[in-house]
């Protein structure tokens, strides 16, 4: 039986041992792209496939995936999702958060079972306190590279040695940054570093391609987990519950497989 908490400590253990790995997360946004649905996260607008609703997203979260225009990027996301390698961990949407149908869809779409499947929410919900208190301090032991929004303030993170920035709809507009990063890794002999990604769907493609390129570094998708440190908004319920003390059940939620 997979355990939400034990899977988290598995990654903690790898960090403590300085054993390189990749943790890639395919949550609901990526799920819709994998399902080849049009996705728009815009100003007061959210469109998923044919469904249109009001949204509350900020500029840094704006995203547009159109199945016809952006099929190249969807194919790269599929590559990242189906890639299997030692210590390449794939977090997928869990049945308790995404529902049984989408959970099953991911497994079917992936094909054969991957023992490195885990939760996309592994650092969130009931594990968020563990992430901030027990995993975050381990980053101090690494020379750390961050890939994040152009508006993030990373000066608060004492372990950062290099930052790469992305902007709106980074999956499409900043795709070339992956090659830039590969060159930077090669030209500077980057090994044993920790790469943190907070760049939405761009992160998934980059983590996959960079880990394939050089698996001597660790690559993790931190999503919005460090927003409280980087001056970004606390607009996710787990962030509000943890940092603002707002009542929300997510902060105690132990996701199931």
């Amino acid at each position: 039986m997979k355990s939400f908490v034990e899977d988290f400590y598995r990654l903690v253990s790898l960090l403590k041992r300085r054993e390189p790995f990749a943790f890639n997360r395919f949550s609901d946004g990526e799920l819709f792209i994998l399902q080849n649905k049009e996705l728009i996260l815009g100003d007061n607008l959210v469109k998923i496939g044919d469904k249109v609703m009001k949204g509350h997203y900020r500029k840094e979260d704006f995203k547009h995936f159109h199945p016809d225009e952006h099929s190249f990027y969807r194919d790269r996301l599929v590559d990242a999702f189906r890639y299997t390698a030692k210590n390449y961990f794939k977090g997928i949407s869990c049945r308790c958060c995404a529902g049984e149908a989408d959970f099953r869809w991911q497994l079917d779409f992936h094909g054969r079972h991957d023992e490195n499947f885990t939760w996309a929410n592994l650092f969130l919900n009931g594990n968020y306190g563990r992430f901030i208190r027990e995993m975050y301090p381990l980053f101090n032991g690494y020379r750390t590279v961050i890939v994040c929004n152009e508006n993030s303030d990373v000066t608060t993170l004492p372990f950062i040695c290099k930052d790469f920035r992305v902007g709106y709809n980074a999956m499409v507009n900043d795709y070339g940054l992956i090659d830039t990063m590969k060159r930077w890794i090669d030209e500077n002999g980057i090994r044993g570093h920790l790469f943190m990604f907070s760049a939405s769907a761009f992160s998934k493609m980059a983590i996959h391609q960079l880990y394939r390129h050089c698996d001597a570094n660790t690559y993790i998708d931190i999503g919005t987990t460090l927003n409280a440190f980087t001056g970004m908004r606390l607009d996710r319920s787990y962030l509000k519950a943890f940092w603002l003390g707002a009542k929300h059940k997510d902060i105690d939620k132990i996701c199931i497989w």
Partner: protein
Amino acid sequence: MIKIVSGQSIPVGSTVALANLCNQFHSRGHECTFFGPDRWHLDKCRSAPLSDFRPGNGDIVIAHGIRLRSVADLDDPGTLAGPSRDGGWRRALEDRIFNIGASRGKPDAFRLVLTRSGDDPVRAGRPAFSLFHKIHFSCEAQRDRRASRHPHFVCPDFVRDLKKPLARPERVAGVIGSVRPENRLEISIEKALQDGMESVIVYGYLLDPVYFYSNIAPFAKKYPGRIRFAGFVDDPQKMYDSVSDVYRCAAKPWSAVKRECILTGTRYHGPDSPETEEAACNDSIYDVWKNELAL
């Protein structure tokens, strides 16, 4: 065997002190294990989960952060395990002890010592002091009147093996302490910046995120590029190597930070502690424990 059992084993000052205590006993030939409900202690000393704890005949049990009201049958440690942060297992322990230890007296089969090392971040509350054969205080300031009516001794915590670094940064302040209002980190940060420190690194376990977000995080906007958050770092040498000065405002004279600053040659700005405690070396501290526990 010496068994240290604590109501929490998160990385705060008292847990560090208990892990040091365990390592010191072990390195001096005494079998010792530290039992706790959290995971941090598990790779810091000879240790085990709290669920493995069971006192045996002839043991010395050193308890911390447990509000014992009576001595109980501790033969079924499985019931002690459970959620630690809400005190679930602790309540189970206390209830069982209360029910079974009808006499509310000291245990006969093993010696029970209470250590008041550090403070009580999980607020276990005051135990029944009469249950304990002895009570340990880390410093005179901890010795409250009620506890002092019982057999007790005062002995500073063991210090970690720290050295002066070959090189260190200039005008980088470390604000060291668990992140919670009692430690008044915001005052330390302001003072460091007023003293001309170029940057401040906050080192400490994040006990109270709401306090952090409302009182500490805003400094990053007020002083752009000068405030950094490290969390609790396991390697104290790396922590002291990364700063020139340490600032503390918490009025807790039992903290080891001042003594560690002396060992590492780090300038210290904070509450004083008695010189006798600062001067105590690990050998003399061990001598006190050896005598008090009749090792």
